[in-house]
């Protein structure tokens, strides 16, 4: 059943598809502030304590004072802002707060897709007043948890996510695709989730520096450069088209565990011991979620930040450490790191239940009809 065309006056959101993205404001830091109100107004940084820990969240004060952001090495943050309050992450507390938040969402909206502890997409298509609904959701979250969030409402997932950023913190912004095209015309294509630094620099080398530049490119030209899949995808994203549905159960594509060593590891025996431990930990998690995968991979980061991944596909899907461990070990031995290892990870992918749903990839060289649409 499509959306019901209702009365249209300028305040009413009447997108054909209506998707909201909700992102908690400085989630971990806010949870900490909630139980330690004396820290309010002070810069708070949540991060681990090891020499290689990274920042998990920084309160807005810490962001404003010293530009501290998540994923920044904790050491850098400490150097920039030694007086900030540094807290160790308390994941059980965050999970509990997250559960409360998501309960509010599910109570108010039927189709909710939770991504991570502090983010969710909501499908509001057909709902009479998306804006009022989300305003109610935000105020209920605040009443019940004392935490604030930001909301973006638009015509697709991608646009909703970009829109959320505009209102942070505590904002609720509605943006149509048309408005977004205008507003972001001068921005780098890197603004779009999924277009990473590598693609950005590749686009720049083609003279595509802004979203407006990207829009000037026709689909066939992009397909020629980036291949049919990525080209078509870039073309769609450049025009801010996105049809990705909001799926209530987040499908897991792969699962991994990794460890960053406090001191780089050179000893082969030690690396092999870690591989066994990581495999066991990973399989424990897979079993808990009843997932079995066929592709087993390892990830190695050397002391010079070279990253390597190797993978191997086995006959039958598995979550058995007796299978995953030895395969991962073989991969490590075959890769044979020539420098001290900084990070080591094990990954399992190609889960059975995902495989059945996947669209078959078109054959390399398969030509398409020149559909103008």
């Amino acid at each position, binding site marked *: 059943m499509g959306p019901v065309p209702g009365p249209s006056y300028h305040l009413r959101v009447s997108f054909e598809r209506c998707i909201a993205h909700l992102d908690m404001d400085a989630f971990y830091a806010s949870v900490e502030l909630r139980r330690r109100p004396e820290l309010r107004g002070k810069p708070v940084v949540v991060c681990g304590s090891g020499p290689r820990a990274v920042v998990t969240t920084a309160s807005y004060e810490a962001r404003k004072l010293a530009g501290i952001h998540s994923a920044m090495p904790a050491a850098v943050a400490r150097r920039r802002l030694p007086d900030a309050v540094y807290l160790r992450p308390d994941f059980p507390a965050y999970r509990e707060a997250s559960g409360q938040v998501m309960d509010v969402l599910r109570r108010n909206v*039927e189709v909710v897709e939770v991504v991570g502890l502090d983010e969710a997409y909501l499908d509001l298509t057909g709902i009479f007043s998306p804006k009022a609904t989300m305003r109610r959701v935000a105020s209920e979250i605040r009443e019940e948890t004392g935490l604030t969030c930001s909301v973006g409402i638009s015509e697709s997932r991608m646009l909703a996510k970009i829109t959320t950023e505009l209102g942070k913190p505590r904002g609720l912004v509605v943006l149509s695709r048309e408005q977004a095209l205008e507003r972001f015309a001068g921005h780098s294509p890197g603004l779009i989730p999924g277009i990473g630094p590598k693609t950005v620099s590749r686009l720049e080398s083609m003279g595509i520096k802004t979203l407006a530049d990207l829009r000037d490119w026709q689909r066939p030209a992009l397909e020629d450069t980036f291949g049919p899949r990525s080209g078509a995808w870039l073309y769609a994203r450049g025009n801010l088209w996105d049809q990705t549905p909001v799926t209530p159960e987040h499908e897991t594509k792969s699962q991994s565990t990794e460890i960053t060593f406090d001191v780089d590891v050179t000893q082969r025996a030690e690396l092999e011991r870690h591989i066994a431990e990581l495999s066991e930990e990973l399989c424990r998690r897979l079993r808990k979620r009843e997932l079995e995968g066929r592709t087993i991979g390892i990830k190695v980061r050397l002391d010079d930040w070279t990253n390597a991944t190797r993978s191997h596909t086995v006959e039958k899907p598995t979550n058995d450490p007796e299978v995953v461990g030895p395969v991962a070990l073989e991969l490590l031995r075959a890769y044979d790191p020539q420098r001290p290892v900084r990070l080591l990870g094990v990954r399992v992918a190609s889960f059975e239940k995902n495989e059945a749903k996947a669209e078959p990839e078109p054959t390399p060289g398969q030509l398409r009809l020149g559909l103008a649409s």
Partner: protein
Amino acid sequence: MKLTTKREDLVSKLSIVSRAVSTRAATQALSGVLLTAKEGRVTLAATDLDLGLETTLDANVENEGATLLPGRLFAEVARSLADPTVEIESREAEHDVEIRSGGSSFHLRVLPVEDFPKLPQPEDEPGLRIPAAALEESIELVARAASRDDMRPVLTGVFVTATGREMTMVATDSYRLAVKRTELESDLGGELEANIPARALRELGRILSSEGAGETTISLLTNQAVFVAGSIILSTRLIDGQFPNFRQLLPESYEHDVRLPRSDFLDVVRRVSQLAQRNAPLRLSFRAGELTVAAETPEVGDARETMPAAFEGEELEIGFNPEFLREGIESVSGDEVLLRLISPLRPGLLEPVEGDEFRYLVMPIRLNV
């Protein structure tokens, strides 16, 4: 609500509506089958919001009412019953439904009936009428060329246009395109232009082939189409957006017209395709008087077969996706198919030797990439 019905009828009607039961429902109610006894009529209905199915059930009604049962479980329970007679009674106080048959008795907890959406109903005045056989044939030939990729919703539909005594269906997934034009036996009584989800049409095709109804009526609502075939009502949302102008995709002329015996060609393609695994293309090499079909899958093996073909002129080699080619040949009726080609990188066309009622355009695979 209390009624008695035949197990056989219940099972077959449930298997029809169950196809619209949502498997990953946003609302619990969509995983249910609605059983309604009202004004002497008993109906079963299910919907996943894209597709809705409703049908009647022969039953003796003792008390009227409506109840929403968990779809899959209800169907499985019905199928498992041993006695030919089934009694269904809702027990309001217990929030469940009792199903009795022979010595067995089941209590199924019901779903909130008020959450079940009202299914679109056909308009009172007679809608457009299309002979079921023509509709079924067109659907079978065209619907499989529709895209299954939700990234481009417009292509997941079959574009149906009909006026007077002519109906055209077209679908494309951008790799191939199928067009079927049909002369109708009688005037359809109006005009039709809609992009109908291929999934709904495939479902309709299945229903038409099993129902044996002579005629289907169609009502077009704002953004829904409602089909009535015998005792079954199928409703579907319509797809918005401009369907590509397919006429301009059909080349105006071809370099080669090759007539091939349909069943031989199909057999050769099927045989050789076994060795075109993992996305490997099928290679068609034409030379004077013959066609060689070949396939190769690295680390698996290869296959080739040569058959006589009325081909003239310079040799031509062209690659196709085995499945797309096979489905194209299968769709062409008659003893012979006409394969029309331009060059290795231009589309190929499959059609019957006579008439232009059906055309299947397929894009090649660039070989030696």
